[in-house]
């Protein structure tokens, strides 16, 4: 039979109550001071705050003693104790923690007095900062919380609700989580201080104080917070796994105006990690639902959704934002956004980027347990195109292996997908979203694997191989989004220097991160400076080309240039020469607008040269 300590806690004053709530919030511990340890030295025991929150509620603890029978700890169970060697007390002690009197121990009737001289444990709630879960002896009586303790305990006359109200809160949370009652969810946010008056305490500390790690040009100013909440415009590209996390982080971080763009609709398989969405939202626009949810749950933020493809928005749309934050899942979309951000960049005559034209971009990406966060300042740090090689190639199997010597289940699946489909259903366009198509591939792959004695073709693997799916992990998204949101805040306020310029994260074996400063590609076709070139708009394309070749610096690397403007091929050597020859006699002003950039390709050039045309005759006219 083990000793049972019964702790009864007194009613709380309102200040005690709020202190208690703080302790619960921070997951803090109460320290109990129990007199009657060895040599009457007080014994300190840490108990999680929640253990003591219900006044009068009876909790059973295990009391642990030393060999000599001294009480050395109180705990819920033995596993939480970290003292040795342990023995349980026999018999029952009732310890009552009463108002001011701190503690009374009542011996249970039948229990033999095991603890010598019937110790009167003194139990008191003190600062919540005690050591976690361990019972430790202190030879020197800790001075903390020794005051108090006179009056006798009044009988507990409160109702059940009064005594147990605090237990109801976590239960309500659970219900809310399960039921999604958004209006009530608001209450939860108030309860944990997301919208409270002290909401910006931490942010103010960052923005209104000088420091040694602040970014260039940072001046502490309370107006920065105002700027963040009222003027700063941030675009979150993508409202999926990363996007949901990003939106939440940005909103809670103080950004008052957020736009979100995503062309996707919500799928059932998103719900495990895209936490802004619920079952009833399936089929609706991700951007719209995400915007609505964020606004409902975070006070004072305006989230504007855009349910469309990123390509559908004009450049003016992207121009209005101070910063672009990307939560994308494809290389194509990243390259597109990169071109958008870089297209605003302008260089001065010395070839230095004009700082006011830099559209900063923060990019996050995750793949299973791995992820990255990077900061792109076009013209300053490498853009996507500069470091395209960072993206690993997709694993592709040789077709002949698939056809003749399959060795893995993936080989069988790819054979069914790439070769058998064409042979047997050549008129049909294969669609990864069509269940019947996927089922067909799975069946064929299974047959093939049986034929070759290969094991492991499953329905799940089929989806994985055909759609190139890598399982998304919610915590990876959360970590990467947090890093991105923080970088966004740093870039906007300069309250701290940001990462330079690429952070990788690997969560497969523990937590590993590494930050690398990648370098720009000076010949990058997207972010490198274009060469200004002045010529009359009335010159023919042939004359422009001749002038380029005659130029002392530019001409050095030109032998037989081809010229394009955007997608338009103005004059191409080789196979398109005939098709483009007519343009040679056209005036350049007809083909390219003033200030337009032409791409010049030449075998002598390692990469495309970008030339910005400035029409001398137009400039003269304006003057």
């Amino acid at each position: 039979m083990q000793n049972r300590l019964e702790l009864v806690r007194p009613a709380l004053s309102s200040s005690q109550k709020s202190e208690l709530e703080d302790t619960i919030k921070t997951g803090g511990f109460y320290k109990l001071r129990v007199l009657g340890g060895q040599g009457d030295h007080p014994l300190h025991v840490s108990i999680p705050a929640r253990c003591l929150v219900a006044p009068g509620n009876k909790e059973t603890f295990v009391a642990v003693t030393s060999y000599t029978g001294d009480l050395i700890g109180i705990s819920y169970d033995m596993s939480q104790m970290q003292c040795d060697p342990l023995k349980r007390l026999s018999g029952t002690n009732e310890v009552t923690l009463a108002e001011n009197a701190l503690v009374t121990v009542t011996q249970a009737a039948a229990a033999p007095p095991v603890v010598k001289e019937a110790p009167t444990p003194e139990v008191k709630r003190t600062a919540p900062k005690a050591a976690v879960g361990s019972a430790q002896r202190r030879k020197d009586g800790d001075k903390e919380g020794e005051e108090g303790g006179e009056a006798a305990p009044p009988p507990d006359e409160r109702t059940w609700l009064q005594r147990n109200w605090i237990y109801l809160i976590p239960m309500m949370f659970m219900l809310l989580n399960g039921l999604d009652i958004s209006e009530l969810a608001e209450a939860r946010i108030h309860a944990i201080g997301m919208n409270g008056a002290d909401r910006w305490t931490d942010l103010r500390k960052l923005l209104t104080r000088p420091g040694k790690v602040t970014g260039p040009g940072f001046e502490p100013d309370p107006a920065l917070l105002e700027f963040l909440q009222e003027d700063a415009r941030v675009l979150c590209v993508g409202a999926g796994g990363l996007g949901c996390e990003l939106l939440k982080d940005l909103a809670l971080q103080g950004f008052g105006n957020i736009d979100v763009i995503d062309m996707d609709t919500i799928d059932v398989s998103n719900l495990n990690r895209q936490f802004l969405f619920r079952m009833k939202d399936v089929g609706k626009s991700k951007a719209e639902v995400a915007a609505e949810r964020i606004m409902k749950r975070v006070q004072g933020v305006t989230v504007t959704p855009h349910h469309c493809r990123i390509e559908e928005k004009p450049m003016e749309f992207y121009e209005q934002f101070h910063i672009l934050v990307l939560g994308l899942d494809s290389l194509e979309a990243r390259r597109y956004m990169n071109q958008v951000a870089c297209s605003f960049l302008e260089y001065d005559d010395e070839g230095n980027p004009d700082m006011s034209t830099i559209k900063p971009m923060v990019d996050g990406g995750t793949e299973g347990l791995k992820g990255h966060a990077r900061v792109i300042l076009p013209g300053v740090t490498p853009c996507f195109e500069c470091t395209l090689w960072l993206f690993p190639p997709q694993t592709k199997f040789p077709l002949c292996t698939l056809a003749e010597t399959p060795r893995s289940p993936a080989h069988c699946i790819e054979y069914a997908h790439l070769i058998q489909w064409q042979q047997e259903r050549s008129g049909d366009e294969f669609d990864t979203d069509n269940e019947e198509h996927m089922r067909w591939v799975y069946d064929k792959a299974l047959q093939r694997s049986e034929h070759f004695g290969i094991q492991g073709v499953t329905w799940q693997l089929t989806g994985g191989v055909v759609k190139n799916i890598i399982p998304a992990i919610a915590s990876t998204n959360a970590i990467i989004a947090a890093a991105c949101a923080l970088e966004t805040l740093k870039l906007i306020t300069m309250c701290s220097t940001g990462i330079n310029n690429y952070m990788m994260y690997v969560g497969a074996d523990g937590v590993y991160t590494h930050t690398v400063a990648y370098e720009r590609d000076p010949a990058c076709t997207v972010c490198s400076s274009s060469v200004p070139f002045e010529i009359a708009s009335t010159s023919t394309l042939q004359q422009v080309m001749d002038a380029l070749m005659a130029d002392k610096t530019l001409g050095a690397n030109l032998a037989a240039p081809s010229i394009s403007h955007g997608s338009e091929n103005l004059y191409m050597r080789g196979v398109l020469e005939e098709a483009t020859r007519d343009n040679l006699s056209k005036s350049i002003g007809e083909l390219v607008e003033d200030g337009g950039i032409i791409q010049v390709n030449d075998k002598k050039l390692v990469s495309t040269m970008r030339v910005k045309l400035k029409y001398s005759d137009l400039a003269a006219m304006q003057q």
Partner: protein
Amino acid sequence: MIKLFSVKEKQKKEAAAANGKGVKQSAGELRLQKDISELNLQKGMSIKFPEGKDKLLHFEITMKPDEGIYKGGTFTFDFVIATSYPHDAPKVKCKTKVFHPNIDLEGNVCLNILREDWKPVLSINSVIYGLQFLFLDPNPEDPLNKEAAEMQKNNPRHFESNVQASIMRGHHINGHYFPPCK
């Protein structure tokens, strides 16, 4: 940098700055312009852009091997280039039905640089060299058309005469008809 976002001096850039600018072509297309301007087509080869000279992402290349067992034939390959080029390889299909160990009857081509060995430094030129090489040196060890490979290994003479007959006159081989492609 703070100047960029400065609260007080939020300089409104001229709206005109964005006008006329924009993403007019993908970075993949930019790279392709370079590839096409440097394209080396040998004698007998031709290229066609079915959607016009400014739509480079889709084209057809026709080649006429002037030696080897496929000499005299005319083979057309369809190239589809994704905007993710050069990260992803071009998608190449043979539009001419041909009895070849490395090209199947659907036109799939088994060429390492089109799949597992593709690298962004390679270009359209490299792919064309690869295709030419396939006609000069068909490889029966790594077959996509098993029947062709076995015939080439077991009876090279018979294989050669079958190939030539199909190119010149059209020919049935193992129940499949290969129309002439002179």
